[in-house]
């Protein structure tokens, strides 16, 4: 009997990104509405566990806040601390010496390398390429080790301080860091090649989640998503803070604007960062002790306001700090890159299939440690089904044969 009628059953998908992760200032829920497989509407819900860090920052001293803001994000804690500390230095009129500036850049670039490796690993996992995920994570450990050698901690570094950094390095540490970077460089080049050539990756990422240059700017998108759409913005190049005016690097820009371009751009940036780290280690200035004497730091902050920008791994991170002459800041305003990149991109998902949603979401580089669960709600029957994000990315299938190996 011939088919005379097709009934399309609308599905509503709730994708909870949360309940919280330190890097997402605003843990959120993407509520995806799909007509069949096609996404027709996306709503972004926020506020699941807003920690309100700006309020306690107003109730603690300027110096204590360095440790508070370092805990906004686990992945990129040194850039948060750096941005805040530089705002304080602007208010105080203090400038660290060159060695401290170089060491700051070294810590932040190590963070960029491991952050970019992490999100590329997560992308591999999301599309079912788990062996690639595990290999990238294994190599990422070298950078975590390097960060530990430099700062004393592999994650939360608390490395930045007003007027400098907390630890110096010697020749032995320098050589260890160079060895780790040289080993990692080979692997990053290899992973970039895999992302350039592997059929599975190309099929899942190319032409998915395209965003034009005009839309990037209208929606205030920043960082790798902007640069992958041809917008050359990079706070390191424009503000030239710390040692970025002396350490040579290229701002990587691509024109494709799709999920694949965003991931390849991160590999290119990781390679740039490795070169920057090697340059710093080989050209580290010796103009004094980079660790200032805490007891001699000013106790009083004059009235004033500062707005500092830093190029975090996910994009432009900004801090506004206002002092009214009292021991605590009058106002601290933090704007993380994910705040713009996640909330303002609901339109990019439209027209794609449900399985593309996790791919697009991951390509923005949100902090995703908490977004594994997904509820599929059949609006007709009211039946709910929970599935993992990975499962959703595979079109609802629970298991995919891991045929791919590297």
């Amino acid at each position, binding site marked *: 009997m011939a088919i005379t009628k097709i009934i399309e059953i609308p599905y509503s998908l709730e994708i909870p990104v949360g309940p919280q992760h330190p890097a997402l200032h605003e843990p959120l829920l993407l509520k995806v509405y799909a007509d069949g497989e096609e996404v027709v509407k996306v709503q972004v819900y926020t506020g699941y566990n807003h920690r*309100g860090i700006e309020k306690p920052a107003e109730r603690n001293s300027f110096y204590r806040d360095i440790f508070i803001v370092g805990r906004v994000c686990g992945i990129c804690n040194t850039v948060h601390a750096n941005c805040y500390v530089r705002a304080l230095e602007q208010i105080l009129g203090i400038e660290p010496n060159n060695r401290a500036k170089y060491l700051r850049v070294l810590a932040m670039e190590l963070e960029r390398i491991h952050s970019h490796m992490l999100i590329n690993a997560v992308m591999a996992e999301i599309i079912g390429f788990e062996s690639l995920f595990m290999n990238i994570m294994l190599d990422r450990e070298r950078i975590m080790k390097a960060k530990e050698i430099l700062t004393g901690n592999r994650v939360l570094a608390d490395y930045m301080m007003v007027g400098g950094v907390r630890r110096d390095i010697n020749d032995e540490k320098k050589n260890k860091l160079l060895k780790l970077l040289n080993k990692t460089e080979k692997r990053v080049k290899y992973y970039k090649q895999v992302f350039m050539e592997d059929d599975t990756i190309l099929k899942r990422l190319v032409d998915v989640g395209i965003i034009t240059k005009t839309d990037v700017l*209208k929606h*205030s998108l*920043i960082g790798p998503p902007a640069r992958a759409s041809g917008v050359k913005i990079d706070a390191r190049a*424009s503000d030239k803070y710390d040692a970025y005016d002396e350490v040579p690097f290229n701002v990587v820009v691509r024109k494709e604007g799709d999920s694949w371009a965003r991931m390849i751009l991160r590999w290119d940036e990781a390679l740039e960062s490795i070169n920057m780290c090697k340059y710093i280690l080989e050209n580290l200035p010796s103009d004094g002790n980079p660790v200032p004497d805490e007891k001699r730091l000013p106790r009083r902050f004059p009235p004033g306001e500062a707005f500092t*920008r830093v190029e975090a791994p996910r994009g432009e991170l*900004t801090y506004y700090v206002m002092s009214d002459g009292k021991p605590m800041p009058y106002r601290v305003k933090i704007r993380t890159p994910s705040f713009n990149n996640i909330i303002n991109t609901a339109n990019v998902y439209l027209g794609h299939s449900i399985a593309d949603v996790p791919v697009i979401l991951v390509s923005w580089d949100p902090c995703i440690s908490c977004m594994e669960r997904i509820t599929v709600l059949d609006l007709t029957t009211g039946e709910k089904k929970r599935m993992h994000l990975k499962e959703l990315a595979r079109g609802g299938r629970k298991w995919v044969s891991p045929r791919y190996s590297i």
Partner: protein
Amino acid sequence: MSYKDVLNKLVEEGLLTPSGEVKPHRPIYVFESGKIRELFTKLIDLAGVEGFYVSTIVGTDLMKDGKVRLDYYVVFLPEEETIVFRTFLPRENPEIDSLLDIIPGVLSGECETYDLLGVVFKGNPALKRGFFVPKDVYEKGIYPLRKDAKV
């Protein structure tokens, strides 16, 4: 047209008034809150859609002055110069027109500033309490970043 020419033009037309700077080297221009749409429409005409982006909106409660200060940090391209557009609103009834229909990128900033500080962006349909603030706080009508808010 360079960003300096754009700013000079807006100053000439009386939409902006130079007023010092935020460190490091972020010039401040003050505007009348009632002319915000006129200002940004003109800005788009002069600089183009691809000539700038709104980086962030910073609201500050100036309780002693009875005002709420609103700063729009605008980054001009390709120079990537950050300029501060500043305005003041009455603390009792802080209202300003939304820019959402002409600059979609302000969505996150407007929603956050409303929820945390109580500034109403007229014409923004996405404004809601609970954007960030937990239910037990916003049900009491508290805007956490107000200086007299006890959270």
